[in-house]
């Protein structure tokens, strides 16, 4: 591929990001305001105390909720353009700060889950396809179906119990992963011990999805004429599978990995709850429950941005894998 082609392709893709982000921003802004409820009512009325009209309108004024809707919208968009997400209506702290404290643990889980899923799924999916309908294939497919059918909170609870019981049994002392998150960069081992169980829990389902995609893509590719050509050239199986098969089969697999990864960033609520981790998923649920517009908008925009960037990476990988896209 010449640098020029790739460059043009990238520019095209990056330009497409702008309208996507704007659309998402508009949606989240208005959808949030469609949900009945009022953050000031929740704040003032918590604990069952009564409050005056006066206090309510003061609260609205303080949060800027008394201004016309379009003004609020422009304020939000303009802030987003300057990468300023404002302050949380609930805590009064900067949204960026709230996100920064809660995001790393979710990201780490998502990244580990992806690594686990890919390491397990691609070899198993490939073997499964190569030995279609054998016992190996059957075992792999059963493993995959179980992964998709079992709710991850259940796997989470069971694995947590298993760790408790096994450590009790072997060391005489039950061990639980620590709850307070520390970054991988500071304490790699401690950090890993926190995220490994949740990562395996979601990674299992994740790998099941990727495995099934790898298997079916590989089965399809193995029937292609160019595989027959490769065999007619007398190539060894390893080269036929790796060079001719996998590179073609990876196209749909990369898409699935991208979608699942982006989904994990905001979709870990249940897992975070089971493992009692303060991740971004739980923060989002709290923010919505509190009618905290600014925080919700900030988190949603973060998730959308990650989604869009993941898509960009997938597109670039696609172009790298498939010359027909690069030169289109």
């Amino acid at each position, binding site marked *: 591929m010449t640098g020029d082609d790739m460059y043009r392709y990238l520019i095209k893709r990056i330009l497409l990001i702008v309208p996507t982000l704007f659309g998402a921003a508009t949606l989240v802004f208005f959808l949030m305001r469609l949900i009945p409820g009022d953050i000031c009512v929740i704040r003032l009325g918590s604990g069952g105390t009564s409050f005056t009209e006066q206090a309510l309108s003061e609260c609205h004024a303080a949060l800027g909720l008394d201004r016309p809707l379009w003004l609020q919208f422009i304020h939000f968009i303009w802030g987003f353009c300057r990468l300023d997400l404002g302050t949380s209506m609930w805590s009064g702290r900067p949204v960026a700060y709230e996100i920064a404290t809660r995001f790393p643990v979710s990201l780490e889980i998502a990244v580990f889950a992806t690594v686990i899923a890919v390491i397990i799924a691609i070899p198993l999916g490939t073997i499964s396809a190569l030995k279609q309908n054998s016992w190996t294939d059957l075992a792999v497919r059963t493993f995959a179906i179980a992964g998709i059918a079992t709710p991850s909170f259940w796997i989470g609870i069971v694995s947590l119990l298993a760790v408790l019981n096994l450590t009790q049994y072997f060391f005489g002392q039950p061990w639980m992963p620590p709850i307070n998150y520390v970054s991988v960069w500071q304490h790699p081992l401690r950090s890993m011990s926190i995220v490994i169980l949740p990562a395996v829990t979601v990674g299992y389902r994740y790998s099941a999805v990727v495995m099934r995609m790898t298997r079916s893509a590989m089965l399809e590719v193995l*029937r292609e004429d160019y595989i027959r*050509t490769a065999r*007619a050239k007398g190539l060894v199986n390893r*080269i036929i599978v790796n060079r001719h098969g996998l*590179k*073609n089969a990876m196209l749909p697999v990369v898409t699935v990995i991208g979608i699942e990864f982006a989904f994990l960033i905001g979709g870990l609520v249940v897992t975070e709850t089971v493992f009692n981790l303060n991740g971004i998923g739980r923060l989002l649920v709290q923010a919505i429950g509190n009618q905290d517009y600014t925080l919700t908008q900030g988190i949603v925009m973060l998730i959308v941005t990650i989604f869009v960037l993941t898509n960009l990476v997938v597109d670039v990988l696609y172009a790298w894998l498939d010359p027909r896209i690069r030169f289109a």
Partner: protein
Amino acid sequence: MPLLDVVDLHAEFRTGLGRVPAVNGVSFTVDRGETVAIVGESGSGKSASALSLLRLIPDPPGRITGGRILFDGRDLLQLSEAEMRQVRGGDIGMVFQEPMTSLNPVLTIGRQITETLEQHRGADRTGAERRAIELLSLVGIADPGRRLKQYPHQLSGGMRQRIMIAIAIACDPKLIIADEPTTALDVTIQAQILELMKDLTRRLGAALIIITHNLGVVARYANRVNVMYAGRIVESGPAAAVYRRPRHPYTMALLRSVPRIDRPRQSRLDPILGQPPDLTRVDDGCAFRPRCRFAIAACARRRPTLMAGREAGHLAACLRQDEIALGAEMAL
């Protein structure tokens, strides 16, 4: 000793509808440097036979169930998988029908040629690339250095088929099997590709098995021809003899169904009537008899084997071949 001696080859597909005996006792020979054509309707087992020669029948559902394939004195059916890999792409090159899908879309043309050389010749990267450029010139591709870096979708169908041919001849094979190499191409390109293959096989001294629907191709390029029907060879002989004096009613029908250059313009072409037989339920009689104008009661009782007629080396599997051939000559 012929280069290739196929003896009573059987191959079948196991499908939901039953066993399909796609290759049902096929025997033929190919001498060194010779061009042998295999013709027949769609579904007559031409591709299945060709793929069986390299043991490339998709398994499952396909399987070679019997026979011998003597190539250069060795029975290919007895070779280990590793020995067979040396034959594939090394001693025998293959060209497929679909140039559009037979090349890997995500690998460069160069890589798809050099990997064969690396596999069989143990060539290093630069040596293989030099040879690849040579090969591209040999198959008539201009500016080979640039083409090597391109991908299949950047080339026309005719060019891709030239690439397939380059791959097939890369390791100086003794035999090239071409399964309908021109069917997917424009008529003008077809002639170019056929001329190229004829020229290359002569230069390399390689034998060629060419599978085709096109009897004109046979007359022009083949030394000998085998006509297949329902998984069997029903007529076999020198190309000119089969083309001018067919002895099997099926061959005659096949010839009447295409325009011919060696006859005055016919008033019309006769498509072969009826359907090709359902291979899952063939009986002991001649498989062509339901569609045959000359069928008699005896045709249902016994399947005729290939028998020599008046000309040496010209065989047909028909009970009435002598009288039919005579009748055809009288009619002319």
